[in-house]
């Protein structure tokens, strides 16, 4: 148990410290790198909870894909660092307000669970013990049975978002010579190459 407690405080401590660095780092690229560190430690906390599948999905999806694109964009931006710091105090009240709302909401949820433990159970599927079924199987069983419509709906939402992004950014430019692989492959030698017998000294 001591090891687990130590691991918890390590992951939690680094996650919070990295989270603070995300908003206080001067360089936006450093901010994104600290954000990645935060995600990584959150994954560690999931492992400690016994939710190893969620932990790995967090790393694959958020750290391995989403944060890469974040970093990609931030690195390409031409940012004036001094200008970036100017609006800090101006946005502080709004940021603090959002943080406060989140804090109150979390307090209400966990406070509710504390005072009425059965309320927490009513909304959730019963959790099987880890030695009966692995995490992945357990998730698959509820995700593709009880929640299959919600799961599909989430997929459709993402698909619509993807198509929307493509439609908004796609423009067909005239006069661009694009490689058309199927046309290249379907070309026959007879259509494109002509054999001529050339008389010496006369040219074609």
């Amino acid at each position, binding site marked *: 148990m001591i090891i687990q407690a130590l691991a918890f405080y390590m992951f939690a401590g680094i996650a919070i410290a990295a989270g603070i660095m995300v908003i206080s780092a001067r360089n936006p690229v450093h901010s994104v790198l600290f954000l990645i560190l935060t995600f990584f430690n959150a994954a560690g906390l999931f492992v400690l909870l016994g939710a190893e599948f969620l932990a790995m999905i967090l790393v694959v999806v958020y750290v391995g894909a989403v944060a*890469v*694109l974040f970093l*990609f964009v931030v690195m390409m931006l031409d940012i004036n660092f001094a200008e970036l710091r100017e609006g800090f105090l101006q946005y502080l009240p709004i940021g603090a307000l959002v943080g406060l709302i989140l804090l109150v909401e979390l307090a209400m949820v966990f406070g509710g669970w504390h005072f009425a433990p059965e309320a927490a159970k009513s909304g959730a599927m019963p959790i099987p013990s880890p030695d009966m079924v692995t995490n992945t199987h357990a998730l698959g069983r509820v995700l593709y049975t009880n929640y299959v419509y919600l799961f599909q709906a989430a997929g459709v939402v993402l698909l619509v978002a993807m198509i929307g992004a493509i439609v908004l950014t796609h423009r067909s430019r005239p006069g661009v010579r694009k490689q058309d692989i199927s046309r290249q492959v379907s070309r026959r030698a007879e259509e494109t190459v002509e054999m001529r017998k050339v008389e010496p000294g006369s040219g074609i």
Partner: protein
Amino acid sequence: MVELWNNYLWPLIWIVILIVVIVVPLLVAVAYLTYAERKVIGAMHLRKGPNVVGPFGLLQPFADGLKLFLKETVIPTGANRGVFIAAPMVTFFLALVAWAVIPFGEGMVLANINVGIMYLFAISSLGVYGILMAGWASNSRYAFLGALRSAAQMVSYEVAMGFIIITVLLCVGSLNLTDIVMAQKTVWFVIPLLPMAVLFFISTLAETNRHPFDLPEAEAELVAGYNVEYSAMTFAMFFLGEYANMILMAGMTVILFFGGWLPPIDIAPFNWIPDPVWFALKISAVLFVFIWVRAAFPRYRYDQLMRLGWKVFLPISLAAVVVVAGVLVAFDLTPVVK
């Protein structure tokens, strides 16, 4: 005191011993992979390859290592120091931690976790950070272009790789690497899933930035890509990480499609050979193909590389998931879940 020793200290020491037992042979393998690459490509070019240092040039990797160790680490003035130094460390570290879940034989694994394949996939998807950080922190156009190419390439091919892994998992019914290997006792997955094995191998080439997909370090246009500003040990760490990743990807191919440590036929002369030897032999065979591809194929053009990833591999692997799942359900072959 005895309790402290039994419960905490001894397991800790034991794990450290196991880690050393895995990492030291791995680093030697990395060193000799560079030697094998030069020798094999030399033979394919009708050259001799390294043959001066030691008998048959066998000490060449150590000479190279010593040279890199003794050189000066240069940090460019315009570079972002912290990130610049962290980048090779990240690459090297990630290339090593992935080996924690690789089973070298039945029960011969450091951490036999339930989501082994997901862990491998997650760690290999993190590999892009080392390159991206190096490219940005170097504050050089060439390095940055190499890093951007690499990031786009690795993210693209990861999607196809994920789907290919799913087709294998559908046949296994578990994410545990030992279970995946044991599911291939009757037949290796390369036979029923041959197209997927080929696609997976090509994706691993792109994922490790190897020929013919080595655009991040295309020396003709980008000098050396993301590692152009690196020297001495920082460069060596990139190099070691890259080759350790190659071995890891070959290991993943072997575990997913070539039956891991299992002998090809389970009869007398074959099953005398210990498990790790079979595993190493199979990895070496896959690595030989890695090197062979490098000697045989020209480099892809960048837009063709992206086209191959998104317009060819992704639809095929997505269709394969549907087809494999359909076949398994139709013929009632779905693996029994514990």
